C-alpha cells in the first residue's frame, strides 16, 4: 500500500484536545476510504505536523481530511527509504 504524507501547519500551537477531536472526526472516514493511519510527527513547538498514512492514493487521504474538516497544507505520495 502506498505511503501518503500529510503536511500541516498551525499558526498557534495545536492542543491535545484539538488533535483528539480531529482523530475522532477522522475515524469513520478512514475506514470507508480504506486509509490507515501509520504515525504522526508533531514539532516540539506544536505548530507543524507530518502525518503518515497507508492508502491507495493521495486523493483518498485528502478526502478523509476534508470530511473530517482537518486543516492541511499538502498531501503527497512518498517512498519509504531506510527502515520503516
Amino acid at each position, binding site marked *: 500500500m*502506498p505511503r*501518503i504524507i500529510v503536511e500541516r501547519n*498551525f*499558526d*498557534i500551537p*495545536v*492542543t*491535545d*484536545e*484539538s488533535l*483528539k*477531536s480531529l482523530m475522532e*472526526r477522522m475515524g*469513520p*472516514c478512514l475506514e*470507508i*476510504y*480504506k486509509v490507515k493511519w501509520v504515525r504522526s510527527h508533531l514539532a516540539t513547538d506544536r505548530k507543524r505536523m507530518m502525518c503518515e498514512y497507508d492508502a*491507495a*492514493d*493521495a*486523493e*483518498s487521504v*485528502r*478526502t478523509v481530511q*476534508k*470530511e473530517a*474538516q482537518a*486543516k492541511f497544507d499538502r498531501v*503527497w*505520495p512518498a517512498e519509504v527509504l531506510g527502515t520503516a
Partner: protein
Amino acid sequence: MEFWEGVATILMEPDILSIRLLGDLQVVRGGQAMPLPASKRTRAVLGYLVATGARQSRERLCDLLWDGPDDPRASLRWSLTKLRPLLNDASAERLVADRDSVAIAAERMSVDVAMVRTLLASGAQGASLDQLEQAARLLGGEFLDGLDLPRCYRYHEWCMAERESLGALRRAALSALVGRLQDTPEQALAYARAWIGAEPLSESGHAAVVRLLGTLGRLREAHEHCSNANRFLERELSVPLTGELVRAAAAVRPAARAPAATAQSVQIPESDMGVAQRLPIVGRETERAWIDHAVESSFGIQAKEVLLILGEPGIGKTRLLDYLAESAAHGRCRVLRARAFEAEMVRPYGAWIDALRAVPAGDVPNAVQRELALLLPGLGEVAPGESDRGRLFDGMAALLRALAAAQPLVLVFDDVQWLDEASLSLLHFVARASDSPVPLLIACAARTGEIDDNPVLARVRQSLKREKRLAELTLAPLDAAQTAALVRLAYPKLDAAQVFEESRGNPLFALELARARQRGDALGRPLQALIAGELARLEEKPRELALWVAAYGREIFPEVLADATGMAPSELATALLVLERRGLLCATETGACDFEHDLLRQAAYRSLSQPRRRLLHRGLARALDAAAKTDPALLADLAHHAGLAGDAATAARGFAGAADRCLKLFANAEALELVMRGLAHLERVPSGAERARLRVELLRARIYALGSRSVSQERGLAAELSNAIADAEAAGLHAEASSAFFALSYLHYHSGEAGRARAATLQSADASQAADQGTRARQLASTARCLLDVDADVARSRALIAEAEALAHSQRVSLTELEWARGLLLRWDGDLEGARVSIERALAIARANGERWREYECLVWLALVDLELQRLERFDTRCIEIEKVARRMGDPDAPVAAVLRDLARMALGARGAEDAFSVSVERLRSIDNKAYLAYALNWGAAIHLDAGRLDRAEACALEAFQAAKAVERITEVVVACALLARIAVRRGDGEATRARMQRLAGEVSDPQRLSARARAHLAPVSAVGMNFSTLAPTV
C-alpha cells in the same frame, strides 16, 4: 461631640493609622490620606484583611482574589510588597506575614467599621441620639465602595454580605433617628430621605417622608412624593402595600395637583449646560507628533508596532485616541474602534465584535466568512466542530489584511486593562501576524495602575515589548499653562490657577472643577463629589436614566433601556438629550449610549445605595432576559445583573448559557470562570428540576473548559457529575443526563480509565437515542454518501438513506449530505436527471450554509452528471463555477474540472483537445487522484475507440483499469475491462478477446449489483457474445 473630638485628636497623631472602609477605601496617617496602590486587587486584600481582622492563610487569599491558571502566590506576594510601606512604620509593624499566612495587627490603628459596631453595640434602639448620629454619619458610604470585583466571586460574595450587614445597621440607625427627631422635623426629614435612599422599598420610610413634609407644611411635595412612591412600590414589590403610606398621605391636607412633567417642560438653561461639545486637544505635542508621523506615512515603519497609550484615569488617553482616529479618518484610513468595560470581562471577543460591527458584510472576503461567522452571526451559521480557535484567528488576520490592503486600517481599543483573555490573545495574534506589508496600526489605551490586575494583558505587553512591536506613550499630567489653556477653552472667563492646583493637571478633573466653579460652587471637593453634585442638579427623569446607564456598566442600547426603565420613547429621548447636552452621556457609533468617561459612570453608580443598586440590576436583568433569547451574546450580561440583583436562579442560568457560548468561541478560560461563578450562585437555588438541570449544564461546561490536560487533576469532579446525573434522571431530564454521561466519559478517558469511559459512552448513546434526531440523520446520510462515493456496499447505503430520510422528515430538516447521497444513489441507478435535481438541492443547501467544501464536491458531481447527460452547455457553466469555488478555497486550479472540460472538447473533436487532455491527465497523476484518473481515462478510451484510435484507447483503458483497481472502484474497473474487450474485438485479436472477456467475467460477480454506468458498458460486450447472466464466455 466628644466622640468626634476624641477621634480627631487621635487621628492627628502621626503614628496613628486610620483606615476607612465605608466609602472609598482610605488610609490616613497624621491627618494625611496616603496614596493607595493602583491595583484593585491589592486594595481588596487590604480591605479584606482589615475588615476581617483575622489572620488569613495565603491559600485563602489566593482563592479569594487570584483563582486562576496564573501564579496566584506570586501575585499575592507582589500585592503585599505594595501594602507593607503603607501599613508599617517606625511605631508598629502592622502587616505580619509568614510563609503560610498574613494578618494586619490592629496596633495604633482605628477602623471606621469597628467604630460603628461599637457605637451600635446595644442596637439602634439602645443607642443615644449622639451615638446614632455618629453612626449614621460613618455609615454614609458603601462598604469598600468601588472595590467590586465580580470576577473574584468568593471575594465578591463576602463583600456583598458585608454590605448587606452594614446596610441593615444603617437603615436601623436612620429609622431610629427619624423616630427620635419628631420635634425637629427639618432634621428628621434629612434622615428620612437618607433612609429611603438606603432602603427604597421601605413603605415606612416613604410614609415618614410624607408625614414630615406634611408637618413642615410642604403639602404639594408630600402628595407628589406619595403618588410617586406608590407607583414605584407597586411596580417593584408586586404585592399590596400595608396602607401606611396612604394613611400618612391622608393625614396631610389635600393640595392642588402638581402639573405632570412633559417633554416640553424640560428646559436646560444655556448657562447650565456642560461642555458637551468636544474641545480641541491641548498639549501632548510629542504624542501627537508620533501619531501624525504614523498617519502621514500610512503607518510606514510603524506598521509592525502596536501603540499603547498609558496613564491614570481622566488624563486624556481617550482624547488622544480620538485624535488618532480623527487624523486617520482625514488621512483616508478606515478606523475600527471599540472599548472594553469593567463589567464585561467575560464577554469573549466583546471588543472585537463591537469593532467589526462597522464592517459591511460585503467587505468580508468570502474565504473567511465561515470562520468569522463565530464572531459575526450575520455572516451565516457555523456547524459544530467545523472550526477551531486557530481558524478563527487566521480568519481575523486575513480579514484585517484584506481591509488594510484596500484602505489603510487603524484598529483602536480603549481601556484594554479590562479586555478578556480571548480578545487579548486575538489582539496578540493579529499584532504578530501583521508582518505582511499592509498598512495596519493597532492603537490601545490602558490605565497604568490596573494593567497588573489583568495578567494576560501584562503577558501580552511583555511579549510585544520583547519582540520590539510595542510603542508606549505614557501621558503625564498637563502643566499649569496647558491646564489654564484647556479650562479657558471651555470657560473663557474663569481663573484657571486654582483649578490647576486642585486638579494637579488631570484634564477631566480640571474640567469638572471648572464647571463647578462656573456655576458658583466652592472648590475643594473630590471628583466623586463634583460629579455627584452634577447629577443631583438634574431633573428626576434624566437623573434616573443616568443611574440606569451607570448600573448597566457599559454602553446600552435605548431599546434595553426602555424595557428596563419602562419609560415611554418620548420621555426617554428627552432625558437622553438632556444628559447628552450636559456632557454626561454620548451616543456611540452603533446607536447605543454611554457615559462620556468611565469615571462619570463610576461616580454615578457609587452615588447609589446598595438596595437601590439591586433594584436597578433587577430591572436590567428582567430586560436582558428577554433580549438574550435572540442574542446569546447578552447571556453574560444577564448573569452579571441577575447576580447583582440577588436572583440566583437567573444568574446561574445566565452563567451556564454564557459559559456554553464561550466554549463555542474557544474561550475556555472565560468559560471556566463563568462556570465557577454559576456554581457559586447555584448553591442558593432551591432543590428541584431547575437546579438539577443547571448543575449538569455547569459541570459539563466545566469539564470541557478544563480540557484534556487539566480535567484529570480535578479530584472529585467525576463523583460530583455522577451525583448531578442521578439528580437529573430523577427529575426526568433525560437529554441533560445523556449529555452529562458523554462528559463523564470524556473525563474518565482523560483520567486514563478507558473501561469506565466506554461504559459512560454507551450510557450516553442509550440516553441520547431520542435526544438528537437531526444529528443522527446527518451522520447516517454522511456514511451513505461516503459509501456511494467509494462505490461500495450500495445496499447498505440505500438502507441508511431511507433511515436518514425518515429522521430528517420527522425533524423537518434539510441536509446537504442527504440530498447529495440521494443524488449519488439515483446516478448509480441510472436516473441521471433525478440525480441532477437532488445534487442541485444539496448544492443550494451547502451554499446557504456556507459549506464550501461540500459546494465544491457537489459541483464536480453535477459536472459529471451533465457530461453523462450530454448537456454540454450546462456542463461548461459548471466547470467555470468549480474553478471559481476552488480559487475561493485557496486552490489555484481545479484539476478535475480541467480534465472533464478537455474530455468534452475531445468528444467534440476540438483542435488541440487531445494534447490538452494529456496535460490535464498528467495533472491528475501528479496529485495522485486515482478515482478521477480512472474515470477520465475510461472516457478518453471510449472517445478514442469510437474514433478508431485503438492504440490510444487501449493505453487509456489499461491505465484506467490499474488506477480503478488500486482504489477499488468497481464501476470503473468493469468499464475499463469492457472497453479493453471491445478494443480486442475491433482488432480481431481472438486470443486477446478471450483473455479480456475472462478478466471481465472475473470482475463481474453479479451484473445486477453493478451501477447503471457499468451495466451500460457491458451491453456492447454482451452484444458480441458474452453471457453475463451465466458468466460463461461465449467467444
